[in-house]
């Protein structure tokens, strides 16, 4: 029965391949079709989530019926089940948003790329094999390149070009890292790799891990390699921006954390972790300081999103259970809040023509519901108590202090102050400046309000989500259980 979870991969694939056929029947069916498929995907993901959390056991999908390490397996544990569900829900909401937001031709290609972006992120999170991880990373990255340039403006082409060059270099680094690890151990399966971690030659382990960190840092938007991100976020179609920030980056940072923690027994591990810590702290500082002087709201939130991802990376680089739990918690919270913010900003951009800061003046009078939702999102991101991000930021900072890193904690707190400045400047513009006519708000405003309610609900009572998240964090941190859960065939030396 559990093998049916393979549909999480098979369904988006077969539906994407069906689009060229559907296009010949009728072009008007494509957008409803997108909504239908993402809804079915959400249903499957919800079933998987329920299955994993009620039994407490991960679902293992064996592609081709081969037991690992001979075949490839999907490992849908607590973490993967949670994030596959988030990916499916966000995709479903964006499929609805696409009705309004995407009118540039060719819509059939957009639908295919949209479905495959969802597939790539799902695969990255679910897979249990490092080469398969690379394949899914390529699927995600190449769809992201194409979708970034989808608007066909000069700006979009430039953003996509930057992304494609950096992403290409990043994935080649990743591939060299995988090759080194394979050369040292003779296996590609993550569980078996973790078993061998101790016996890998220290130089190989260090070089391989560092290459993998650098390769994934492009997708995960860490400091020296994230120059593509703000441009890409700004130039991509609005629903795609939401998907980038809500789950594409998350998949990258998850892959980074997963591989790092799998190899925690390898010698030289802690120095790679320290490298990640430095990169993460710099990411937070640079992103928040750059956001301060942006004139375009979408770009400003893009920088803020990078900063938040830096926080997650910081939490993952601590090497403690508390840090990993806090990082996963922040990933979930950030996915909700940034989906809310980018959706709201994108909606304003479509309705009022552009996302320049001036367009947001008097938004409180023109689109009150959207304005309210954006305000809640902005306040939540800063980390004000009674909103969800407060709890995860608090946990991350406490975990950092507990792990004995004073300076990163201070720098990150300073960045939060900077964040407060530009978000409250935006909120001030929305409510206390300018005037305007009332504009009509539709279904999207409803979605925004629902997301805002979730943000506040988690803020008031974080315990239920925290319980889910600690299980997911344990899945990531506790490698011994991970190895035990994957039944390896005896192909020992």
């Amino acid at each position: 029965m559990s093998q049916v979870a393979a549909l999480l991969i098979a369904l988006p694939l077969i539906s994407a391949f069906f689009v060229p056929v559907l296009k010949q029947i009728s072009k008007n069916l494509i957008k409803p079709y997108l909504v239908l498929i993402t809804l079915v995907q959400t249903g499957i993901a919800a079933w998987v989530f329920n299955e994993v959390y009620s039994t407490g056991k991960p679902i293992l999908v064996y592609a081709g019926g081969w037991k690992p390490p001979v075949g490839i397996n999907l490992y849908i544990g607590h973490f993967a089940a949670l994030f596959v569900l988030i990916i499916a829900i966000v995709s479903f909401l964006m499929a609805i948003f696409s009705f309004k937001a995407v009118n540039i031709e060719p819509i059939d290609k957009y639908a295919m790329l949209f479905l495959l972006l969802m597939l790539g992120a799902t695969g990255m999170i679910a897979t249990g094999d490092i080469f398969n991880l690379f394949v899914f990373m390529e699927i995600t990255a190449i769809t992201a390149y194409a979708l970034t340039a989808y608007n066909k403006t000069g700006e979009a082409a430039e953003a996509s070009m930057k992304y494609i060059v950096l992403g290409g270099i990043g994935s080649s680094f990743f591939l060299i890292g995988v090759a080194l690890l394979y050369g040292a151990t003779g296996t590609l399966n993550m569980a078996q790799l973790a078993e061998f971690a101790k016996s890998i030659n220290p130089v190989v382990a260090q070089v391989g891990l560092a290459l993998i960190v650098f390769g994934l840092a492009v997708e995960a938007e860490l400091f020296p390699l994230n120059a593509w991100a703000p441009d890409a976020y700004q130039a991509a179609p609005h629903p795609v921006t939401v998907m980038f920030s809500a789950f594409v980056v998350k998949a990258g940072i998850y892959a980074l954390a997963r591989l790092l923690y799998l190899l925690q027994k390898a010698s030289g591990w802690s120095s790679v972790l320290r490298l990640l810590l430095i990169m993460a702290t710099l990411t937070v500082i640079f992103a928040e300081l750059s956001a301060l002087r942006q004139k375009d709201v979408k770009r400003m939130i893009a920088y803020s999103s990078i900063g938040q991802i830096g926080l997650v990376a910081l939490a993952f680089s601590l090497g403690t259970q508390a840090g990993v739990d806090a990082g996963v918690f922040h990933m979930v919270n950030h996915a909700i809040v940034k989906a809310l913010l980018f959706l709201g900003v994108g909606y304003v951009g479509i309705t009022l023509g552009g996302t320049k800061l001036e367009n947001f003046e008097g938004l409180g009078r023109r689109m009150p519901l959207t304005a309210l939702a954006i305000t809640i999102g902005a306040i939540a991101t800063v980390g004000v108590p009674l909103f969800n991000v407060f709890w995860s930021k608090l946990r991350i900072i406490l975990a950092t202090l507990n792990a004995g890193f004073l300076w990163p904690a201070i720098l990150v707190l300073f960045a939060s102050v900077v964040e407060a400045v530009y978000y409250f400047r935006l909120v001030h513009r929305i409510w206390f400046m300018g005037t305007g006519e009332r504009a009509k708000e539709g279904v999207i405003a409803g979605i925004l309000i629902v997301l805002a309610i979730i943000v506040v609900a988690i803020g008031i009572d974080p315990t239920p989500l925290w319980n889910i998240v600690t299980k997911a964090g344990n899945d990531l941190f506790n490698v011994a259980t991970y190895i035990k859960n994957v039944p390896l065939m005896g192909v020992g030396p």
Partner: protein
Amino acid sequence: MLKRILAIIAILIIGYWLAQGLANVPFGQDKMLVGKYYLEHVKDQTGAVNAVTAVVVNYRGFDTLGEVTVLFIASTGVGALLWRKKRKRTAKTEGSVVLTTGSKLLFPFIMLFGMYIFIHGHLTPGGGFPGGATIATAFLLMYMAFTIYEIPHKEFEVTEGFAGMGYVLVGLLGLAIGGYFLFDWIWQTWHLGTSNIGRLFSGGFIPIIYTIIGIKVGTELSGIIDNMLKEEVKE
């Protein structure tokens, strides 16, 4: 100049660092954990004589499905980015008679050879990707030799979609018959061709999947060529 020197120094440092890593990977030694398993079991477990295709399509078929998808994304992406309402070929110089006649004559031979490659994927080197690329070369040749030549894109697009769906469907059939996604039901459940390993009708579902991949890759690469050769017409 300074930039160039700095770049060279940086590359040398990275190269040295990588070489350090590589030097510690045992080369030529027996490090084949999974590899050995593949070599020892490939014939009776998959029916393929070509171990590479057995690994690529059967043992690690999930990766190949992903690679097919990557190619699909590439052609879709090119299609999306170069999309204009009306596009036409604007080539000006007609090829010489030797070129056009020669291409016309060669076209069926290249097609035949491409098909040969992907049909015999489980027996000889090659498989779906080289076979498909060979077929696309035949179309490229026609594009280069004739100024007006165009593939029927509508049919090509639909074929491409059906081929992709075919691959996933074979996988889903495996889920229905054998209980696992991408399970080789022809070999392991039906035992078709188990008695003639090394002949054309063996290899489980490998020849079927390679035919699908060959068709898909051939149509996709031809589509990319078509997209890139056409320019917008102003009205």
